[in-house]
């Protein structure tokens, strides 16, 4: 048997950082938000990822609480988990600017601009080397946008 020399482990490690694996295994804010004011579904037909994002906005359009349920790969679950961590406490424009920053950062390989402090979300950086996984990383964020715009139909990443 030919021994396989796995010399490209670094990129994989970059993708599956400890923080990602942690959020994938123990997603924060997981479950249904009974008193949600906004929600949206995200579906990635590629891998069958499916999640529902719930938001509770207060009278001043601030995100008081967020949660999600569903199933998916490590990247999409971790991304959704990080999302909820991030957006709680933000107002709508603030949350939308995270949507913009994250999706631009993922899809535009050249992008290095730092308009926002992405903080823990930078753990998703490794995805940039895996174009076929970008949709996993952005699924929850598209659901966020859809929920904030009060779209009720599911969004897909294809």
């Amino acid at each position, binding site marked *: 048997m030919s021994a396989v020399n*796995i010399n490209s482990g670094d990129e994989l490690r970059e993708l*599956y950082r400890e923080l990602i694996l942690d959020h994938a295994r123990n997603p924060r804010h997981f479950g249904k938000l009974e008193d949600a004011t906004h929600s949206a579904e995200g579906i990635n037909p590629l*891998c069958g990822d499916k999640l529902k994002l719930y938001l509770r906005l207060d009278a001043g359009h601030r995100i008081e609480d967020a949660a999600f349920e569903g199933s998916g*790969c490590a990247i999409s679950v971790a991304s959704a988990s990080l999302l909820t961590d991030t957006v709680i406490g933000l107002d709508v424009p603030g949350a939308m600017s995270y949507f913009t920053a994250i999706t631009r950062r993922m899809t535009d390989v050249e992008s290095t601009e730092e308009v926002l402090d992405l903080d823990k979300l930078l753990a998703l950086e490794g995805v940039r080397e*895996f174009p076929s996984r970008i949709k996993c990383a952005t699924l929850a964020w598209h659901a966020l946008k859809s929920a904030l715009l009060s779209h009720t139909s599911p969004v897909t990443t294809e």
Partner: protein
Amino acid sequence: MTQLQHSESNIESIESCRDDFPALHQDIHGHSIVYLDSAASAQQPLSVINAVADYHRHDHANVHRGVHTLSHRATEAYEGARDKIQAFINAASRREIIFTSGTTESVNLVAQSYCRPRVGRGDKILITHLEHHSNIVPWQLVCEQTGAELIVVPIDASGQLDLENFDEMLADSVRFVAIAHVSNALGTINPVKDIIAKAGQLGIPVLVDGAQGIPHMDVDVADLGCDFYAFSGHKMFGPTGVGVLYGRESLLNDMPPYQGGGDMILEVSFTGTTYNDLPYKFEAGTPNISGVIGLGAAVDYLQNVGLDRIARHEQELLTYMTNQLAEIKGIKLIGTAAHKASVQSFLIDDIHPHDLGTILDHQGVAVRTGHHCAMPVMEFYRIPGTTRASLALYNNFADIDRLVTALDKARRLFA
């Protein structure tokens, strides 16, 4: 892992087939490619690639209606491929070989042209729980359109059809049976011949979805006794965009055309149109000429290698793969029927198949992950999807070893 002894086999000779496939001679992420996704779509031998390119370099024109040399050559090549396929699946007549764009269109054609006018409220169409979406949704559409009902033969935990109540199911107003020859997600080879015989006794026509049957075994529609047999070029080392519907002539004759257009008519006027004879009645418009010619070349290739040799080789590989996989800690094999084609679905620990797919790809190993267009199967096992390794004639034992090594790496990464 150590490689098994396989001195008795014909492997040495069949291994050289691999050289015929240019796509298998490249590196992916720095590793020589291990292609274990043939059940989704197979690679093409050079003879098929060249048949298509040569056709366009020298012989292309529209078929059937031309008197000039290129049109004559194109027509001869196109119709010659029909003859090859007739012989390949042992159909009674070339009129029974209809070229379509693939299995999916073949099934839709039968659903719309055969079933739709013939079923109504109270009638049932029987499928099974292991079907590919292409052999589910067309029947759901017909049921919506006509009020007929879809009933589903269950499967057991190994992924075999549970036929205990089959006779009663069949006897209860079933008007049509549509069933996979081989499950793409589970690998199960269904007892289609028995099922066809039982349906035949009740006069119920049967369509066999042969998308996963035809690449792996010698298919003889006369021996099977089926009324329709559907398959795709791209799963049998031929081009995309081309497939076949075999149909029994007597049934095809009684069916209205599926699509209207050029070539499928004898006479068009605004007062009435006369349809052409079989098989042309069902081939509206300019067909996929180069696709059909490529499919003919794929049939030549398969026959040169020999369907029996291919089946033997794949069975040896499958046995080896199953044994090797079974040794991996935390693995769960999905699809463990007694009779299987060379396909294995599995799960490892709680690693999502999509993550597994990425990790394997990074080591040059191409597998498919997800629901494999068989969501009801996933629902049955209560899983979102699987990782699936599927083997073709060009795979070898080293490919399987590479798969196992790569899985090992994934487990360590997620440990």
